[in-house]
């Protein structure tokens, strides 16, 4: 297991490095002169040249890449073109909000969706299984921003149960969660459907396997068979999906951030792209990419713990 953890972690680090390098090089594919775009049409050639030199844009790509990496390792992600504030500072302001939103958005579907899927598999063909089936498809089909808007209108504006916009200005956790409820609900609703369906399908497959028959032939109580023998195997594809899902939720959260006017990385990246704020785009994308790689790493490690056969394959 230790071997697997080490190998997989090293692989994750290599992936992050490679992803950052590729992202960096992609900036050069964007048409147009960065200096002209950044400084506006009225900038003189001298000002543009000075800008290029200060950004190091006139040096060869490899040198720029190397300089960039050394900066990143020191925590310097560059400087916002407009406000001249450090990119790292800007990111650190918004990351906690997005992180809180993403984590809450995945925790509640896990807590509800996985037991739903288990129940549906055990009571296959029953009434509740059919209801769960229809509901799952329904919630997957509705786009999250539609849910967000309707949730906002109904729960915040009409019923006034939850705040409509923004984040908590008070320090305590409970208040912050209060502001997160509606956005997390909007993003997570589709996930309940995904997880329920996936868990149901995996469980059905596993429950038909010979080793479950063996466990039952020893008179092991059905609850132990389900949770200790079957779920442990069936949950593996779900864990992998959640790992990838959390990573991609960061960018998917942009809809909820816009509808609920919350600060967050998704909105930040979106705004930066529109204003051609390259350093901020780069910084934001590096953060989201790294987050995705780390999430998949954790998911893989968890799977290796659950299913020892995974440890042999790297």
């Amino acid at each position: 297991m230790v071997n697997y953890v080490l190998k997989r972690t090293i692989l994750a680090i290599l992936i992050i490095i490679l992803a950052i390098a590729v992202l960096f090089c992609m900036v050069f594919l964007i048409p147009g002169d960065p200096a002209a775009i950044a400084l506006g049409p009225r900038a003189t050639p001298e000002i543009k040249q000075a800008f290029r030199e200060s950004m190091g844009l006139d040096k060869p790509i490899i040198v720029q890449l190397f300089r960039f990496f050394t900066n990143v390792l020191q925590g310097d992600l560059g400087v916002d073109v407009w406000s001249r504030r450090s990119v790292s500072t800007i990111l650190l302001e918004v990351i906690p909000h997005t992180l809180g939103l993403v984590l809450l958005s995945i925790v509640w579907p896990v807590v509800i969706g996985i037991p739903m899927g288990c129940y549906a598999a055990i009571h296959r063909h029953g009434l509740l299984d059919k209801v769960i089936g229809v509901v799952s498809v329904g919630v997957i089909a509705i786009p999250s921003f539609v849910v967000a808007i309707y949730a906002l209108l109904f729960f915040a504006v009409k019923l006034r149960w939850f705040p409509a916009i923004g984040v908590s200005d008070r320090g305590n956790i409970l208040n912050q969660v209060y502001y997160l409820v509606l956005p997390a609900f909007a993003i997570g609703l589709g996930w309940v459907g995904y997880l329920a369906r996936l868990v149901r399908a995996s469980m059905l497959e596993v429950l038909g396997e010979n080793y479950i028959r063996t466990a039952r032939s020893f008179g092991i109580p059905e609850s132990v068979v389900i949770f200790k023998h079957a779920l442990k195997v069936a949950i593996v594809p779900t864990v992998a999906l959640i790992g990838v899902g959390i990573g991609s939720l960061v960018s998917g959260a942009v809809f909820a951030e816009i509808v609920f006017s919350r600060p967050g990385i998704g909105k930040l990246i979106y705004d930066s792209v529109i204003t051609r704020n390259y350093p901020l785009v780069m910084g934001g994308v590096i953060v989201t990419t790294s987050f995705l790689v780390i999430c998949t790493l954790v998911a893989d490690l968890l799977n290796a713990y659950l299913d020892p056969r995974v440890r042999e394959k790297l």
Partner: protein
Amino acid sequence: MSQILLDVCGLSASYLTPFGRVQALRNVNLQVRKGKITGIVGESGCGKSTLLSSIIGLLDENTSIDAGSINYLGLNLLELSSTKMRALRGDQISMIFQDPLTTLNPVISIGNQMLGVQFRSSSTTAEKRQRAVGVLDEVGISDAEYRLDQFPHQLSGGMCQRVSIGMALLSEPQLLLADEPTTALDATLEVEILDRLRSLQQRLSCAIIFVSHNLGVISELCDEVSVMYAGEVVEQGDIQDIFLRPKHPYVQRLLECDPSRIDPNQGKLPTIPGDIPDLITPPDGCSFASRCHIAVPRCRLEKPLIKYVSERHTVACHLAS
């Protein structure tokens, strides 16, 4: 004569397919005595696996028992509540299965599986582990302590099957059901496993119902044998009776077809032409009539009743004397 441990009376079972209801078991009678090894032999489609699943109560969703009773020490297993039936499984009645590689849970270590099976025992974990090591030694696994921490995919098929047999015998059951446990193993390993099974059985004096399609294996291990064809028992008796003095034409032909009994210089090997009858609408008369070389018109019209050839040797055939 030892006590009757299991008495299957008139058992009929069927399962649903898109084409209709298949009568997998038809009026099956079987008696298993304490401490004896009973074989059930038959070819594909004869219902032997369904019979074992019925006894241990692990039938598929779409299989149902239509008639009969399964009496274990006086209790009718078919009438027991699921809790009481579950109490018997893994304690008094254990089962081993055919495919060793899929019978064990791939994500739980061998040791934890063997501990899990002892869940009824009030011993400490260390004691349970000790018992597991002991039984693994008995089934011929070297380095048993080390194996407890391994996972099934790290063991060969033969070793997995040894583990399964060990697990089944941990609780020292009264009755062991064995569904073709050596069919998937190499011949040299098969012989060793049969030897170990016999010595374990002698130590525990449990009864075994051993299902196989291999006549040689049955004659090697069992004391008594029942031959099944198309869901029915066609002949039953001691192995001496069945293998040396078979009375049913199917059993006679089956023994003739076994290549190990045939003189190599014979030339063409005998076969039994035809197929088993359609079990969705089984024939009114004898099931074997369509393939029987001595069938008479009565065979196709009337079901043969069970006749006693001697005290323990029965046959279901109109023409058997």
